[in-house]
């Protein structure tokens, strides 16, 4: 009886394989976080809007937030793969430290998971809210976007029309997006804008381009035979160049 009372509870955190897992966890977390952010984010296009910069920052944050979870899984896998096998009907003596039916462990797991989800939700909503700010801008250019199998067409406020998109730099633009046939998805790759184009309905997306250059517009919804060719370019130019361009093209449409 005395022996029983004096016997200590096994201190599982002191066992060699737990220590090994902890070290591997730290290493794997650092590796997953670094590889996930640097290599993955660097493979994404250079941003041409605050929206896209926000998307990239969000991916960086989410990747680092997820890195400990993935790191723990990898660390446990590595520990198991590199441990010696035990033969026999009964578990080895050092297996006493296993955790089973532990309300505390369950609570930690649930709370950490919930906090991670809540973190992802709140930071995601903040970025989404910032993305939508331009929709409310009274000075924003109102642009109609039409998806047709397999060409995009753009209608400007002064009556100009084009198959490639011209935008002025540093000015908010609201896209009113629709389709005349099947479902498409309007995607400006470097600006982080992607919105469904649905027949018979108008969806909205907004962005403020912040870099002069030529960028890519694609369809992100499989829409038929030539979906892969449903691409065009977006030219972000200075305000004066934009004014000149839309005036000329409105004249070509007979609407100047």
């Amino acid at each position, binding site marked *: 009886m005395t022996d029983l009372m004096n016997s200590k509870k096994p201190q599982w955190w002191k066992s060699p394989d737990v220590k090994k897992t902890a070290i591997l966890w730290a290493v794997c977390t650092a590796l997953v976080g670094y590889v996930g952010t640097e290599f993955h984010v660097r493979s994404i296009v250079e941003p041409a809007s605050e929206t896209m910069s926000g998307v990239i920052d969000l991916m960086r944050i989410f990747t680092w937030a997820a890195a400990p979870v993935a790191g723990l899984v990898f660390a446990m896998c590595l520990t198991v793969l590199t441990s010696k096998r035990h033969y026999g009907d009964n578990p080895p003596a050092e297996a006493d430290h296993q955790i089973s039916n532990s309300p505390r462990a369950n609570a930690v797991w649930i709370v950490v998971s919930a906090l991670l989800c809540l973190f992802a939700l709140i930071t995601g909503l903040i970025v989404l809210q910032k993305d939508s700010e331009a929709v409310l801008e009274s000075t924003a250019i109102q642009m109609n976007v039409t998806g047709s199998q397999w060409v995009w067409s753009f209608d400007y406020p002064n009556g100009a029309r084009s*198959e*490639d998109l011209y935008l002025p730099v540093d000015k908010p633009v609201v896209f009113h997006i629709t389709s*005349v046939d*099947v479902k498409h998805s309007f995607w400006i790759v470097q600006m982080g804008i992607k919105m469904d184009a649905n027949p018979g309905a108008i969806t909205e997306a907004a962005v403020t381009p912040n870099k002069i250059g030529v960028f890519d*517009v694609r369809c992100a919804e499989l829409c038929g*035979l030539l979906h892969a*060719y449903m691409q065009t370019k977006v030219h972000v130019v200075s305000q004066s160049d934009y004014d000149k361009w839309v005036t000329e093209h409105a004249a070509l449409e007979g609407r100047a």
Partner: protein
Amino acid sequence: MNKRILAALGTVILGAGVIAGIGTYVAAAKNDSGSIMATSAGSFTAPDGKTYPHYTLTMNTYPNSTFGGHHGEDGGAHPDWVSYGAAGPYGEPLTDAKTGTNFVVPAHSAVTITIWQYDSGETLNNDFFAKVRGTVGGTATLVERYDTKSHTNATEAKTITQIPHDAVGHTFTIHGVSSDQDSLFINVPLLLANDDEVTAAEEEGGFTQFPSMTTFTFITGGEGEYIWNCEFPCGDGTVARFGNAMSAMSYMSGHFTVKG
């Protein structure tokens, strides 16, 4: 050798074999109808005074695909499908041609295309395509009725920038991927032919004597791979009337290659 290593090797070899088999099958199933090269036609002076080597292409649009060669060996005839196809110098249907929808033109050249439109038509989904876009001067030359027997214009030729969006037979629309290659976007709407004449001719197993004839010229940039398709919804009722002929390459679509 260890049995496990042998089993692993066998699995890898089997997997590679399956992938190679699928690749071979897909490559064999590809229906490439070959290409038509543009014909040299001297030089062309653009409105801005620049002179370019000049090339021409001729093609027809048909209300049915009664001959299969234009669509590749396995494309086949589809009497219910509309189609583009190869044309003679006066819009004659070249029924024995083995290709009709893939085109190759030289870079940095003026290309003049003439299309005889033998089909009737209706209304475009998007009136954006009722306007001539990307051609020299933003115009095309339209003969509403061309007499294919006497090889003369039955109506006067006129310069157009657009046609009514509810009188379109088909469109010839070139576009491409958004890459480093030069942009090339051409859209020319083709006026519908008289519906009664189209139907009467079809019942006799032929094509109307009086198709519309549209001619336009554009300047090519550097080398590039482009695609062309019709923007008139002329397929069957599926996928917003872009089914059948519109959903199979080499009928109402094809490759348009600019080569140096």
